[in-house]
């Protein structure tokens, strides 16, 4: 398979971690020996299932509960359709474009530092005996696919209750192709990749790739699609807060697959990733709760769930390098800042980010990405920096990757939405919006309870 090598994120990330951890065996070689570890495989299969579970039904419920009853199916359907379509695209070209390493060279910047080739379309050459690191490559393909599914699914929260299904589908395909795949490649494709190798950015489980990427797309989309009818004038309460809490719980549980799975092994790094994920999440939830209690007079269920998600988002890039104390710091900061973003900032600028995709994923992702540079410090129980790198340099690298992601995703989103608008129109008409998208776009009603 010319131009398409199996060496992939595994190698890139493991090399970095290997470097950081110092004392351990030179894991960078692991990718060369084709030995499957049943333990690592067991965990990664499970982790992949957990990350899919985050989207279906986790995210679908988290979002579905927050919209009005007349639009609940539209949200669930969008998550389902994205999961299905991205699965196909991933197999056809996504995995290849994201992870093929043809033309890449350690320390060298070229086009392939930004994006991979299409030599591995249709997963050509991948069989049950292909190996990636210590796991079957099929499992690596699957694990990464679940990330490629949830990221566009995250965006739908921003334009919920008003965007046309057809437009949403088209935009998702465009954005996936031109924003998700390149940013993923830059971060995780290994030697020669812009973020991961050249800049030495720490993004263990997808702060840039997933959360900032999606958060910015959400912000652009909610502005370009426009506000919901009646936004700001009439109440648009969640139709089922229990669904939102179930969804948040599933996100929480599934996120262990996301973060601890990103170790690509069932080892101490995975274990610590799980632990710091839990700590940051708990801290963020508690922080949000007390913020509301203090500033609103009451702690709310939607609030604590949102806080938990903010913590999950922010710890994501740091989960492979931060320790318990760093996790507390990240959890606290993310809840604080996301709280402000979702309550004050949105009100101030008046965009209708329906389910706070930008406020939680965009802002939380940025907070996390930057603090990852801080919390890798051994002074905060972190694993330390690569040789010759200090906190300042690391934070600077983190910020650079944030900026590139913001600009890249923002640009792709603007152009993509513009095109889709020309092609099919972005927005459901007033009558459809008033009646609800469930009936008008899908011919169904969520509930027939009587």
């Amino acid at each position, binding site marked *: 398979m010319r131009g398409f090598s199996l060496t992939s994120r595994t190698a890139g990330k493991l090399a970095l971690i290997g470097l950081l951890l110092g004392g351990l065996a030179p894991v960078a070689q692991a990718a060369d020996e084709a030995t499957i570890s049943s333990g690592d495989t067991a965990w990664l299969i499970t982790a992949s299932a957990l990350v899919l579970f985050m989207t279906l039904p986790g995210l679908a419920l988290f979002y579905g509960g927050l919209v009005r009853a007349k639009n609940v199916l539209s949200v669930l359907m969008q998550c389902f359709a994205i999961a299905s379509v991205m699965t196909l695209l991933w197999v056809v070209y996504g995995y290849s474009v994201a992870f093929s390493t043809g033309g890449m060279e350690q320390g060298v910047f070229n086009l392939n530092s930004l994006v991979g080739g299409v030599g591995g379309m249709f997963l050509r050459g991948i069989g049950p005996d292909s190996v990636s690191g210590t796991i079957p490559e099929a499992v690596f393909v699957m694990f990464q696919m679940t990330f490629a599914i949830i990221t566009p699914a995250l965006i739908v929260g921003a334009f919920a209750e008003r965007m046309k299904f057809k437009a949403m589908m088209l935009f998702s395909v465009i954005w996936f192709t031109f924003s998700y795949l390149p940013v993923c490649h830059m971060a995780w494709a290994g030697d020669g990749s812009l973020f991961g190798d050249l800049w030495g950015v720490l993004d263990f489980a997808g702060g840039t790739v997933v959360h900032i990427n999606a958060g910015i797309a959400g912000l652009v989309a909610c502005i370009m699609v426009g506000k919901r009818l009646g936004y700001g004038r009439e*109440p648009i*309460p*969640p139709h089922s807060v229990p669904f939102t809490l179930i969804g948040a719980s599933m996100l929480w549980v599934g996120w262990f697959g996301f973060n601890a799975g990103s170790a690509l092994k069932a080892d101490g790094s995975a274990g610590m990733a799980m632990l710091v994920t839990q700590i940051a999440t708990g801290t963020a939830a508690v922080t949000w709760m007390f913020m509301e209690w203090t500033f609103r007079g009451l702690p*709310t269920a939607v609030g604590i769930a949102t806080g938990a998600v903010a913590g999950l988002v922010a710890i994501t890039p740091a989960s492979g390098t931060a320790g318990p104390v760093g996790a507390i710091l990240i959890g606290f900061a993310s809840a604080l800042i996301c709280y402000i973003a*979702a*309550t004050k900032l949105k009100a101030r600028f008046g965009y209708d980010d329906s389910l*706070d995709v930008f406020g939680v994923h965009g802002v939380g992702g940025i907070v996390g990405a930057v603090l990852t540079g801080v919390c890798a410090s051994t002074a905060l129980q972190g694993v330390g920096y690569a040789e010759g790198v200090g906190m300042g340099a690391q934070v600077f690298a983190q910020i650079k990757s944030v900026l590139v992601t913001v600009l890249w995703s923002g640009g792709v989103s603007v152009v993509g939405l513009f095109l889709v608008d020309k092609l099919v129109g972005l927005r459901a008409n007033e009558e459809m919006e008033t009646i609800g998208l469930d009936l008008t776009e899908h011919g169904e009603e969520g509930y027939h309870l009587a």
Partner: protein
Amino acid sequence: MKKIEAVIKPFRLEEVKEALAEVGVEGMTVTEVKGFGRQRGHTEIYRGSEYTVDFVPKIKVEMVLSDERCEPAVAAIVKAARTGKIGDGKVFVSAVETAVRIRTGDREEAAL
């Protein structure tokens, strides 16, 4: 015949039903409604937004009965539904011309 419509607080329904049974009312129809009046509603908070709901859950009890049973029934409702706090609700009485029991075709008082 008269029709009594009473809008009451939901948690008084059981008491009202019993009080009506005592004065011989054996049938009624009940609807969940929302009331708007002097009683203020509540505030809800969802992330960025906070809003006031003016409508308060109430129960509407309707029954049709013969003229002579009307006043005792009204009195019974008022007594059973009263808590003394704002929002206890109202009782309205109006005239009904015809009543039919679907099962038997019985008419007027016999239908009740």
